[in-house]
Structure formats: structure tokens, C-alpha cells
């Protein structure tokens, strides 16, 4: 019998639904948790049993929920407690399998400053920098020593939380304070590291799986298109590297994870600079939002592999990993790119996605502002990059979400831009765009005016009256 009987997912939204799917396929039981204000979200009902928790970040309460639902394993998803060694340890103490690395491996890699030192030990290049520091004075001093352009980063976690790019030191103190406020709110830890800003840079990351001794690389993902340091389009393979560079990145990623006895899924992030040099950024000791891109290129189910490794099953060998074709993911967010990417909230009046393409979503009837703005990931795969772009473009053109503002049109503008088509994407690309107004074609205005003029007629009548109309 498989050693895991029931998995509690200590998360919500699309990633909770994603993990439940693999568990259901494997015949493993599932449990969801929900905060009081989130009880109607789809992830709650996607599991066999569920339990209310005070907060998704409340370690004690999540452990209690796991016991109450008779779960013998916990999958943390991404964000929330996924990179919290205290949570991994609390699971172990309660006799619950944590589907992820050990607390020790997490500590060695999850903290950016320790990860930097670990990388250096293995001869992997890192960007120049200092830290971590908690006191504003120390951070200020380090920033002045390094000089602009620089980055302020949360030592404790990723996802762009607290991350600030400083092209000059003019507003240093207020930037530090803002960064620390965000870091405290996201991770309960306000330590920052100060690092050289590499520009123009490509963000390229390597997906690894490890079993505590050996690490294998499943492939790289290029995630250079980011807004506010949050990725919105990811693809594999990267257009920026050749096979020699790919091997270098894979080797570095395997070395650093094997070096700390890492187990489970991890992502080693690098920046590739204008000189062709690569710099280790950080390791995300968890499942990534963009993992489907690698799944579509390899045909593997990364969540299944995570569960198997946590259950003590042998991991596949590197020579069995075969990559094919090209995959692109677009993140549909509840935000308005034409108003500075302000988050948008409200009831979902309509949602429609096309068939025949992978859509990972946990979207319910309402989007609030309390949680992440991600509402769906649309992921295409094709033999070539052009084919993957065409499929994703078509899927986004045919999809609709009404009731809130989304970045759907903006994603299409990116996919259809010359720089994207040419594979010229850098971490600074979106920030440097003149985004302008929301494009509103006349068809929308006419449909709106016709709807206001009403009455709206029943579609059953359409065929009888179509007659001479032709389809466009």
C-alpha cells in the first residue's frame, strides 16, 4: 500500500486544485483548508474533506486541521507556509509527511543570504552583494557601499514580495522602509539583502527534482517577462541560451541542491547578464507557479513525482528525462495593467475558457483583494515556439472573464509584440513599456450600446432570423 493515505493541501486557489488532481489520480485521499472568509472558494470542495483554519499562515492550526482530517501528509503548494522551515519541522514533529524538502535543506537554501554563501562554496557565480540585515542603518550602509543600481530583496522568501530596484540612492530610506513593511507582512521576517542590479538580464530557472542524494534537472524556464518582479509569461526552452549554457545551468542547479542533501521539487533561479555570464539568484524550495511549462515539455507530472519522493519511492534517472517542443504559460491576473497593475476585485459575472488547452484555475464566484491576484494559468504546448504562441494567443482570444478587470488583453499584447516574437525578453521589458489606455475596439461599444438599448433577444431566435447573415 502507498505510504501516504491522505494529503492535506495547506493552500488555496488554483494550486490547491492542481495538487488535488494528482492525488485523486493516484487514488490518495485529499483534505482542504479554508479561512472563514474563503469558505466558498472552489478549492474547498475540490477535496474529499475540509477543515476551517484561523489563517493559512497559522502553523499550529494547519497541523490541527491535518490531524482532524486524518491526513498523514501535507502539501504546502507555493507561497503561505511553503518555504517556512518551522512548518516543515512542525509537520515532522506531528508525525505528518511534509511533501517538500527537510527543514534543514530549506534553511540552507530558502534563506537567500545562506543560499548565496552555499552557491559560492560550490563555485557558482553570484551577483555582488551584502546582507542579510534587519536594521535600516545597516541596510543603508550596505547600499551606500555597493552603490546604485542595486536591488533590495527579502532574505526570507520570493514572489517579488518586498523586492525593490533602486537606480539611484535618492529615496533609499523610504524604499528600505517600504520593502521591510512588505517583507514583514509576507514572511513575518524583515531581513533584507542588498545586491547588484544586473541589467539587461534574462531570468532563467532550472526545475530540479531530488531524492536526498541525487538531483535531476527536468528543464529550464525563461521567466523574464515580469511586472513588479512577478512573472506573467513563462516559457521553455529559453530563447536566450544554447545547449552549452543549458548544461552549465543544469550542472550548477544540481550541484547546489545535491550539496545540501535536497529532496523533492526545487527551482534554482539564475540571471543571465548582457555579458553572457550567469549569476545564481535563489532557490525556491517548493513547487513553482510556472511548473506546468516543464510538465508539458517533459510529459511528467511534477506533483506526482513530489508525492512519490515524499512516499519513499525511487526517483527517475536523468537519462529518462526527455524534453520535446515548446511550452508557454500566461498568468491571468485580477489586475488592471492600464491603471498601473492595480488589483481588481469583485464578483465574477462570467467566465469562459476554451477546451483543448491546459487551464489551471481555482476561480470561484468572487475575487477578493486579500489573496493573490492570480485567477488562472493558461498553458500551451507546440512542436515549435511559433506554434505554442499561436495556440496560447487563440486560447486567450476565445476566453472571457467579466465582472472584474484582468490582464487578458495585456497578455495578448505581449504575445503579439515584436520583442516577444523575436524572443527578446528581459526582466526590465515590461517596466520600460508605454502601456497607455485599455484598447476598446468598436465591437465592444456596439455590443454594449445594443445591450443598453435592449431588450436582449433569446438566442433560440437567432437561427430563424439569421437568413442572409453570414458568419465572420
Amino acid at each position, binding site marked *: 500500500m502507498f505510504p501516504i493515505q491522505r494529503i492535506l493541501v495547506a493552500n488555496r486557489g488554483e494550486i490547491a486544485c492542481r495538487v488535488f488532481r494528482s492525488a485523486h489520480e493516484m487514488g490518495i485521499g485529499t483534505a482542504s483548508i479554508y479561512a472563514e472568509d474563503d469558505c466558498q472558494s472552489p478549492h474547498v470542495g475540490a477535496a474529499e474533506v475540509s477543515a476551517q483554519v484561523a489563517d493559512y499562515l497559522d502553523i499550529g492550526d494547519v497541523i490541527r486541521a491535518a490531524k482532524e482530517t486524518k491526513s498523514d501528509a501535507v502539501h504546502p503548494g507555493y507561497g503561505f507556509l511553503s518555504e517556512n522551515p518551522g512548518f516543515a519541522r512542525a509537520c515532522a514533529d506531528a508525525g505528518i509527511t511534509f511533501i517538500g524538502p527537510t527543514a534543514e535543506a530549506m534553511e540552507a537554501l530558502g534563506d537567500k543570504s545562506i543560499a548565496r554563501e552555499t552557491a559560492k562554496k560550490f563555485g557558482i557565480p553570484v551577483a555582488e552583494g551584502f546582507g542579510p540585515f534587519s536594521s535600516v542603518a545597516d541596510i543603508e550602509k550596505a547600499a551606500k557601499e555597493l552603490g546604485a543600481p542595486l536591488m533590495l530583496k527579502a532574505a526570507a522568501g520570493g514572489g517579488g514580495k518586498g523586492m525593490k530596484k533602486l537606480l539611484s540612492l535618492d529615496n533609499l530610506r523610504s524604499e528600505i522602509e517600504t520593502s521591510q513593511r512588505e517583507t514583514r507582512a509576507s514572511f513575518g521576517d524583515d531581513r533584507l539583502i542588498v545586491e547588484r542590479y544586473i541589467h539587461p538580464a534574462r531570468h532563467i530557472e532550472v526545475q530540479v527534482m531530488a531524492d536526498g542524494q541525487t538531483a535531476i534537472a527536468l528543464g529550464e524556464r525563461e521567466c523574464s517577462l515580469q511586472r513588479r518582479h512577478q512573472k506573467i509569461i513563462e516559457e521553455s526552452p529559453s530563447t536566450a541560451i544554447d545547449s552549452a549554457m543549458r548544461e552549465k545551468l543544469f550542472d550548477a542547479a544540481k550541484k547546489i541542491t545535491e550539496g545540501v542533501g535536497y529532496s523533492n521539487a526545487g527551482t534554482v533561479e539564475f540571471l543571465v547578464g548582457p555579458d553572457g555570464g550567469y549569476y545564481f539568484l535563489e532557490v525556491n524550495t517548493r513547487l513553482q507557479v510556472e511548473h506546468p511549462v516543464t510538465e508539458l515539455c517533459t510529459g511528467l507530472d511534477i506533483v506526482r513525482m513530489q508525492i512519490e519522493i515524499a512516499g519513499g519511492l525511487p526517483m527517475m534517472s536523468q537519462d529518462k528525462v526527455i524534453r520535446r517542443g515548446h511550452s508557454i504559460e500566461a498568468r491571468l491576473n485580477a489586475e488592471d495593467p*492600464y491603471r498601473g497593475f492595480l488589483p481588481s476585485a469583485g464578483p465574477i*459575472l*462570467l467566465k*469562459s475558457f476554451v477546451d483543448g488547452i491546459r487551464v489551471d484555475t481555482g476561480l470561484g464566484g468572487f475575487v477578493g483583494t486579500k489573496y493573490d491576484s492570480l485567477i488562472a494559468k493558461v498553458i500551451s504546448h507546440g512542436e515549435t515556439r511559433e506554434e505554442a504562441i499561436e495556440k496560447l494567443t487563440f486560447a*486567450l*482570444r*476565445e*476566453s*472571457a*472573464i*467579466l*465582472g472584474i*478587470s*484582468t490582464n*487578458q*488583453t495585456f497578455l*495578448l499584447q505581449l504575445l503579439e509584440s515584436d520583442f516577444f516574437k523575436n524572443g527578446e525578453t528581459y526582466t526590465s521589458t515590461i517596466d520600460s513599456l508605454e502601456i497607455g*489606455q*485599455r*484598447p*476598446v*475596439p*468598436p*465591437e*465592444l*461599444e*456596439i*455590443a*454594449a*450600446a*445594443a*445591450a*443598453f*438599448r*435592449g*431588450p*436582449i*433577444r*433569446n*438566442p433560440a*431566435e*437567432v437561427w430563424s*432570423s*439569421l437568413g*442572409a*447573415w*453570414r*458568419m*465572420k
Partner: protein
Amino acid sequence: MKLIGPNGEVIVELPSQVELYQSPDGASSLLVDGEVIHPFVVRDALNVWVAWNGYSAMFTLPEQDEALAKLELRAPMTGKVVSISVAVGDSVEPGQTVATLEAMKMEYRLEAEVEGKVVEIGAKPGELVDLGQLLVRLE
């Protein structure tokens, strides 16, 4: 027709032949001068949301048209018309019930907000109506 869209006020010149057909799930067919497109359209009493070809926007009627909007009594929800209590030519007072709807076993009385004369009835008793469908137009 004047509308407020995401980028401010717009004047929409409706082509001579425009018809909008909508199913309850929002999928629509818009016939414009001999061509058909398939937008998604949702409306409530104040706003219309439209998505088509990867674009989406919310539209509102300008405030000056609010008085006009009050003369159009529309279904506040998708449901069944139980009764229409006025006929074309009747005068109505503010607060007077003009129609009764039923949905989820709950009855909802649609009342006139302003006084006026009934010039159009948009639905019959027993008919299923969509959210936003015109029930009674006053003058």
C-alpha cells in the same frame, strides 16, 4: 448613444441593423450590418460588461441618462414573470407595482420609481426573462 467606458465617455453610433441575441450564460451573437460576431455580454440595471476577441470592458450610462433609465423597468434578476399589473396607456405613480417576478421560490415586486405613462410591455406573464430584460417602459 453616450456611454462611459474604461477610457471615459464615448459616443456610439449604432449601425442601422444591430441585433443582440443572448443566452442566459452570457454567450451572445451580435448582428451588425450583415455580419455576426460572438461577444460575451452581461448586464445589470446600471452596467454592461462585454468581452470579445480577448478584449473586455465595462460600460455605464452617463448620469444624465439616469432619469431615462428610471423610465425603463428591467428585470433585476433572471426569473419567471408572475404578473404584469399594468397595460399600455396606464398611468403609474411612484411606488406602484408594475410587475411581479419569481426566482428561487422568492417573489420580487418591480415598482415604478417615477410617475409616467406605460408605452411598452416587454414580457408576458409566465415568460422566463433574463437579467436586465425590459419589462415595462414609461414615458
